[in-house]
């Protein structure tokens, strides 16, 4: 029982980390209808910018808190530049194209960003130390033998994700720009006709998604070290999106929890009888099963098709 709870909590916390990446996808899809495959590459770029800036500022002997803030600002600036370039060179040129074309364009952007970030910032593994504790803690040792293992970094990640979602919720509901974003998500043409500048909105959306990617990159980079395989996180976030629905922020969180828990439980309890290594496809199959009952995901918008 104790072990089950341990795997469950580990899975839930891992799921929160996946949903951090999925949030970026949801934001962009909601506001511009583009399935941004480049989110993974954006996580990588943001993390690389962050870790290299931190290294550089620490080499200049800045105090840790100043170096950290400076590094975050630098990385945010890089993401803003990327958002601006993406809007100008990709989105504006492909305005009325079908979804699949835009999707392919974002795959092109993925390759471009992966090459660019590694050219600018290097392709080594960079350990990232943000001052977050990384030790394991053992809960309920009196109840369960050995206690339930929970990693402090994962708990901090869950807290950060929670704050981020709350922040985004406030941003969308209470601010003018948030309202404009929701308007654009509903209907581009109508939004434009009431005077909402589409190009600016898309830039802001990609910027916000870039900042979300930065947070995700910071957390994942602390866990794994900043290296190329961070961009493969996009593939782990996709089942989360499918399950939660492409257009729903709470869907991303809940989808993340379900996928994270399901994946780890399956790997640990079902895996050994199947030889192990089933994590990756199990997440997709789980999402697929949900899709068969709700084709737009748990919280996605029901698309009503008319002839």
């Amino acid at each position, binding site marked *: 029982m104790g072990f089950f709870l341990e795997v469950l909590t*580990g899975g839930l916390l891992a799921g929160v980390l996946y949903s951090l990446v999925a949030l970026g996808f949801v934001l962009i899809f909601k506001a511009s209808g583009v399935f941004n495959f480049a989110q993974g590459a954006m996580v990588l770029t943001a993390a690389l910018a962050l870790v290299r800036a931190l290294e550089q500022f620490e080499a200049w002997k800045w105090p840790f808190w100043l170096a950290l803030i400076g590094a975050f600002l630098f990385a945010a600036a890089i993401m803003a530049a990327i958002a601006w370039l993406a809007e100008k060179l990709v989105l504006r040129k492909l305005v009325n194209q079908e979804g699949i074309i835009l999707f392919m364009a974002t795959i092109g952007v993925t390759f471009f960003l992966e090459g660019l970030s590694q050219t600018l910032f290097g392709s080594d*593994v960079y350990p990232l130390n943000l001052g977050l504790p990384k030790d394991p803690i053992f809960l309920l040792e009196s109840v369960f033998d050995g206690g339930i293992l929970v990693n402090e970094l994962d708990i901090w990640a869950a807290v950060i994700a929670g704050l981020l979602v709350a922040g985004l919720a406030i941003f969308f509901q209470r601010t003018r720009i948030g309202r404009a974003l929701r308007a654009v998500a509903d209907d581009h043409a109508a939004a434009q006709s009431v005077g909402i500048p589409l190009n600016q909105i898309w830039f802001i959306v990609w910027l916000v998604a870039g900042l979300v990617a930065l947070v995700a990159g910071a957390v994942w980079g602390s866990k*794994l070290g900043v290296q190329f395989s961070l961009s493969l996180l996009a593939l782990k976030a996709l089942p989360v999106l499918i399950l939660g629905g492409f257009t729903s922020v709470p869907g991303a969180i809940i989808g993340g929890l379900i996928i994270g828990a399901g994946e780890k439980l399956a790997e640990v309890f079902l895996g050994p009888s199947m030889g192990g290594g089933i*994590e990756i496809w199990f997440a997709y199959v789980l999402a697929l099963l949900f899709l068969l009952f709700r084709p737009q995901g748990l919280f996605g918008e029901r698309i009503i098709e008319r002839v």
Partner: protein
Amino acid sequence: MTLRKAALLAAAIVSASLIAAGAAQAQNEQFIPGLVYRTGAYAPNGVPFADGVADYINMINARDGGINGVKILFEECETGYATDRGVECYERLKGKGPTGAAYFSPLSTGITFALTEKAPGDKIPLLTMGYGRADSRDGAVFTWNFPLMGTYWTAANVAIQHIAKEWGGFDKLKGKKIALLYHDSPYGKEPIAALEIMSKKYGFEFLQIPVPAPGSEQKSQWLQIRQARPDYVLLWGWGVMNSAAVSEAGNVNYPRDKMLGVWWSGAEPDVLPAGDKAKGYKALMLQHPAGKFAVHKDIEKYVVSQGKSLAKPEEVGQVLYNRGLINSMVGIEAIRTAQAKFGNKPMTGEQVRWGFEHLDLTADRIKQLGFEGMMGPLKPSCADHEGTRLSRVHQWDGKEWKVISDYYTGDDSILLPLVEQVAGKYAAEKKITPRDCSKES
């Protein structure tokens, strides 16, 4: 539109002509290709090895003017650890230089498997030092493969020997549990055959835990390990899987000093990212330790201080860098051995193969080359393409690797029957008649 079209056309013509121009073919040069991966998930380990390979060759060119006067032409080709890119690099580089490529060293078991099919037809030897097909030790069947200094079955056997020594004897293995955390690829699966035989022989329970490539996320595997509580964990990873494994072991509080990695999981890039958590982690050595030896003086004098090294200053002397040096050294010594028989000119692949098979690195020669303290004598033969089966163990103390054991020798009573069985199966499948080594000169 016309101006843009004209500009694009001009660029295309210029690039095409540049490719066509190519490099001038020198006549008295030995071409050695380098299949490297400096990008991708395995780059952290691929880069220092590639730097070592390149630096030793540059040093020989600068200090000695080549091999007996024949300069070495060295070219790298990026494979990204992908088999199809490795094959493409092989096809592109195999005919370069006046006599073609001397040997190929892909540093990837996957690419090795693919090239094992092509190399015999093209008559180019494969140097797979410390990796590749474990059954290619049998030179009678695998004429063109040279897994010098160690295969994965040797590694598995030495690992068990070390564990037995730690516990006080082989009889202490009975009833214990040893887990293999492996990279889910041919590389990671190679030791399983040998470990299964040893688990039956010595009576320990053998647990196999695969990690899907590239292996950066291992939480569920380590939760399983925490549940199963094995007495030892053997790590067979590469690239980011290594550092992730060491980190996760720290996260679940599995004692790091009960982890033993293969010689490809025991280098600085594998432990530095985990920080303090890596303290106590042990790994096998492909004979050589980290650190600087006699040869490094020449490397620093002729390559590093001239600014020709691709390596960062702290890389020189690290585990994988030293391994790259040895890799180039045995290749160059094989060419030298071949030149002693066939003349001081560029060697063909066939001649280099003869050179590998008749390589005789004595302790004196190793000292002469500057590698004393890094490796022992190496003498491959027709039947034994491995040459030697020595290995030792080093441990990370948080700052550097410390050698903690003497040399172990691979136990041929276990290894030879397995090699004969698997190599024989390959020969039967491929309809190869094994060479008769008693008749070879």
